[in-house]
């Protein structure tokens, strides 16, 4: 049983959470939903006992209990397990199989099969795609049979066809072993049907009505018979891909986890060179990578926005709802992603490539990003987005959809 009763939580004097209280009884799955920066991840970390253990400068007015123990006691007794949002984490050993062996746990092939990770359980964790990493971590934590299981933003990395069995597995785990499962996610419509209760956190998202920089007249994109693989002898990731010559267009690359979306984004921005074929793009390309999330070089949000040449820095920061003096590394994953996407789309680049734009975005921010994509196309840009989320591209009216497979219908 998880019991959360928080009057307010302050980080270095700034109020992050206010008046949140709920209970997750044994054998139930609950969802905490709310916009980016509303404190979802912080609540999970509080429940996991991580805030009390690892962080300074956090003031908590209220109480959190797990099976009537404080979070720190529950952590020490091994009652809580947590899957983080940022998958820069790795395993202690190389693969899921060796990690389970190190922990003295026999692999449960039913769990492994239900998450569709049979082929990667012996593979080096660091070489897996983000979606695969999340599935492997979920498989690992379900093997631990904890009293409280916490998952941060599963919908961010796991593609919808896999998210369903993952959530079904969590339901099974909770009913079979009495585990209290708490998920923090912004995709309420997708996840709530597998949950017993949804707890909403406050906060609103304002869309950006800022003025965009016009691009030069050279916003184009063309791929000619592009082939790519990471090493000789390995499988081709991109096989003979061609596109028409596109000007001032929106291209959406869709596909399941590990289908090669990030590889294609890297080829388009010329971070990778094709083994065969040709990639034709303009000189001024802005790239928002999936990883690293924090790539901003300035000391605060305002300087970051100013140095990335947007026309209206104050308006943009206001619409992001950020403190202009805040350091970029102090932003939440969702806030940092929105900052990156907003500056990219409002900059003077001819082509903007965004790898997985939905990472960390709540429902309202998704609408705002879609609006901004529309505006940046009007300002003359070309935009390429890669996503596992077909729902996101609905209503965007892309000029071209490149389907790399793995998502089903």
């Amino acid at each position, binding site marked *: 049983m998880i019991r959360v009763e928080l009057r307010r939580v302050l980080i270095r004097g700034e109020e992050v959470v206010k008046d949140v209280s709920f209970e997750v009884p044994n054998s139930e799955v609950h969802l905490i939903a709310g916009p980016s920066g509303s404190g979802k991840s912080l609540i999970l970390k509080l429940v996991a006992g991580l805030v009390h253990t690892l962080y300074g400068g956090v003031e908590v007015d209220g109480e959190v209990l797990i099976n009537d123990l404080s979070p720190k006691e529950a*952590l020490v007794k091994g009652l809580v397990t*947590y899957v983080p949002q940022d998958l*820069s*984490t790795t395993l202690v*050993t190389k693969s899921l199989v060796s990690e389970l062996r190190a922990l003295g746990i026999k692999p449960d092939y039913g769990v492994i099969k239900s998450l569709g990770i049979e082929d990667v359980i012996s593979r080096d964790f660091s070489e897996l795609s983000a979606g695969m990493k999340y599935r492997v971590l979920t498989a690992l934590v379900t093997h631990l049979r904890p009293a409280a299981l916490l998952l941060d933003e599963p919908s961010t990395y796991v593609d919808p066809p896999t998210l369903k069995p993952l959530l079904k597995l969590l339901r099974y785990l909770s009913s079979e072993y009495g585990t209290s499962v708490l998920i923090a996610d912004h995709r309420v419509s997708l996840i709530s049907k597998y949950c017993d209760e949804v707890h909403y956190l406050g906060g609103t998202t304002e869309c950006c009505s800022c003025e965009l920089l016009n691009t030069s007249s050279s916003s184009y994109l063309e791929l000619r018979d592009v082939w790519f693989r990471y090493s000789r002898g390995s499988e081709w990731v991109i096989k003979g891909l061609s596109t028409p010559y596109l000007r001032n267009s929106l291209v959406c690359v869709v596909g399941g986890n590990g289908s090669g979306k990030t590889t294609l984004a890297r080829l388009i921005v010329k*971070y990778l060179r094709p083994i065969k074929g040709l990639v034709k793009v303009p000189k001024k390309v802005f790239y928002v990578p999936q990883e690293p999330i*924090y790539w901003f070089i300035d000391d605060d949000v305002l300087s970051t926005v100013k140095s990335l040449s947007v026309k209206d820095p104050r308006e943009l920061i206001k619409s992001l709802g950020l403190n202009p003096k805040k350091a970029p590394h102090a932003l939440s994953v969702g806030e940092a992603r929105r900052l990156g996407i907003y500056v990219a789309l409002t900059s003077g680049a001819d082509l903007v490539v965004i790898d997985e734009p939905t990472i960390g975005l709540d429902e309202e921010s998704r609408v705002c990003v879609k609006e901004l994509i529309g505006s940046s196309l009007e300002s003359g840009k070309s935009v390429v987005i890669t996503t596992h989320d077909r729902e996101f591209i609905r209503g965007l009216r892309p000029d071209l959809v490149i389907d790399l497979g793995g998502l089903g219908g």
Partner: protein
Amino acid sequence: MAESVTKLYLPLTTLITYSLVLTLVVKDLTLTSVLTSVPLITSYFLSRKYFTLVLKGLAVFIGIYVATSLTTQYVVTKSLSIEYVLTNSLRILGITYLALTTLRFVSDYLVINYLRRGSVTSIITQLVVATNSLRNVLETTPELLFVVRNNYGLVGGLKGFIKSYVAVAKVATLNTLLRVIQYYESLITRLPKQYRTN
């Protein structure tokens, strides 16, 4: 267990022998080249990603070594012994790579076999956290450098080159700190109880 022992001792013995031979006995360039390339090629097939990463770092170091060594020789003796410098470069390359590979095998062996018994001390766990976080940051640094240079327009010219490297060093340091915390957060809730004390 038998698999782990073979995994540990076979490469470990080979690596120690190689290091000793390279350091103490061999003075010949051809033989040094052969002795360096064999374990490097073997390691390449074991972990290509790790291999490439280490080689990139070593290439910069050896480049600096070769340049300074040749300059020093010329200034002091007014002559150049390319063979001497090349032999030493290969030694540095081989021994550093072997040392890192050994460390990897040792830490893998310790963790896999002693973690659940509580015999891995918290220092080793923290070392694993630190090295893995560093490895993760090093792996993402080339893409970070690309993103910074591309998005901030720091391409072309010495000033842009220096500025981009300074900026990336700063961001990568912050990312490392963040990674250590994030890695620890995730790890501490997955480790057996005896490791969850602080």
